């Protein structure tokens, strides 16, 4: 046996194999772990900038009421007063920016209302809930003014 490590040769080679494995692992880490990972937490620091770069989709109630001055007064009269406009209307930042370019969206009450009011035992008991099969009809907007749900919708033709 004229090997460098005598009878330990095979063990040394196996150790070398493990060392090589660890080296490959370290290389893979250097290669695959994104830059900035772990700077602030268990995530890529650059993800913050990426998220910040997304266009803002919601304008917020304050923006809406600047132009639609009449709606908040109507809302105040009913139980939907504390619900934000865009909770029902969806994100409308583009519209608030420039109403001529992006139109405001009128949600369809048939779809919208049950999202919140569908009866479910998991909801607080005091919350008004209906089972659409038993309630008075599918066209909620016919009998409820979306902004003042306790009232019938005014006018409209």
């Amino acid at each position, binding site marked *: 046996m004229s090997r460098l490590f005598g009878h330990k040769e095979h063990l040394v080679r196996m150790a070398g194999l493990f060392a090589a494995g660890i080296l490959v692992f370290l290389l*893979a880490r250097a290669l695959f772990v994104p830059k900035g990972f772990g700077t602030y937490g268990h995530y890529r620091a650059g993800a913050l900038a990426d998220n910040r770069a997304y266009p803002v989709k919601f304008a917020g109630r304050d923006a809406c009421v600047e132009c639609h001055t009449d709606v908040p007064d109507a809302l105040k009269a009913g139980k939907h007063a504390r619900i934000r406009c865009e909770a029902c209307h969806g994100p409308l930042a583009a519209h608030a920016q420039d109403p001529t370019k992006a139109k405001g969206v009128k949600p369809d009450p048939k779809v919208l209302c049950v999202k919140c009011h569908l009866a479910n035992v998991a909801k607080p008991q005091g919350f008004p809930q209906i089972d659409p099969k038993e309630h008075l009809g599918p066209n909620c907007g016919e009998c409820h003014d979306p902004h003042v749900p306790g009232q019938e919708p005014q006018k409209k033709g």
Partner: protein
Amino acid sequence: MNEALAAAVQGFMYPNEMELQWSILIVLYPYITGLVAGAFILASLERVFKVQAVKPTYRLALLTALAFLIVAPLPLQLHLGHPERSFEMYLTPHTSSAMAMFGFVYLWYLMAVLVLEIWLDYRKEIVLKARSSTGPMKAVYKVLSLGVDDISEEALRLDDKVGYALTVIGIPSAFLLHGYVGFIFGSIKANPWWSTPMMPIVFLFSAIVSGIALVLLMYMAVSVLKGQEIDMPCVDTIARYLLYAFIIDFTLEGVDLLHRIYEADESFASLDFMVHTKLFVSQILLQIIFGGLIPIGLLALTQMVSLSEKARKGIYVLAGTATLMGIFAMRWNVVIGGQLFSKSFLGYTTYKLDFATREGLLPAIVLLLLPFAILWGLVKLLPPWHDETAEKAV
């Protein structure tokens, strides 16, 4: 609300509790890792505690452990999807996540313990095979021998020493491996069915039980397949250890149960109801009676009265099979049972097991058979029995 889901619910269930997220695949994961840990611990008995009688099963146990360990992460990956992402667990270790750190426990056990130990134990045969075989297999054994064909007394003595040290490290590692699986469940504090410090210990002992039972059955099956005599002192000894381990396991689970019953905390009425209804078959019948009391009784019988060889063999097969089923039922009751009741303790849902879907019964069966296919390959490559023809070639 999904009508089908609603139909599966009894009483009050929070919306996010109606559908079970952890399927039968998650049942397989602790079951398979348990078999690994148990098989390894049986192998270590021979090596560290010098129980000569179980020697014929030593290598078979190691290969069985390896075959099952290779399959252990597959149910998780099938459940989660995106298996390529599991690699990120190593690239960006998340030290505060018990599940993420399991990757390291797994890797340590696979590479530093099992693969090394098997390699050292088989090195002599690998070298002999590299010398005697021809064609592509020669190259395979050459690579496995790392190009060193030193099987001198001295080299082999060294292997034995290092192998012994590895086994000594391997035992706590095997305990860690499966204790850890129990820890993952036991540390989920939001779930009263899981959250108990007993969980790692109970998982560990049930793992030992299932692993021993598996090796016992495997050894008997392999002997029959090879047309060899079953070494009765060997299976008698294994069966005795199975009985001891089982008594400890059963007692621990009993203590846990007793503790829950006496403590009777706010979750008790609900869990108790569940055990008597939805889990009755899998917990009371399959786990406790058919998978616990009966195999323990059968094994105890072989210790108390002297039975014929044939009767003992029959009893071992029966008890081993019942044990494997009982431990599977235990994993099922933990994983599935833990998701059947509401955190409000006012309702229960149902687990619907699909068949040929990604998380259905079919992939589960395939995943349970896969280790046997791998084992078959391993046995072809590294025969666990001493090969006389190769021995003569020396």
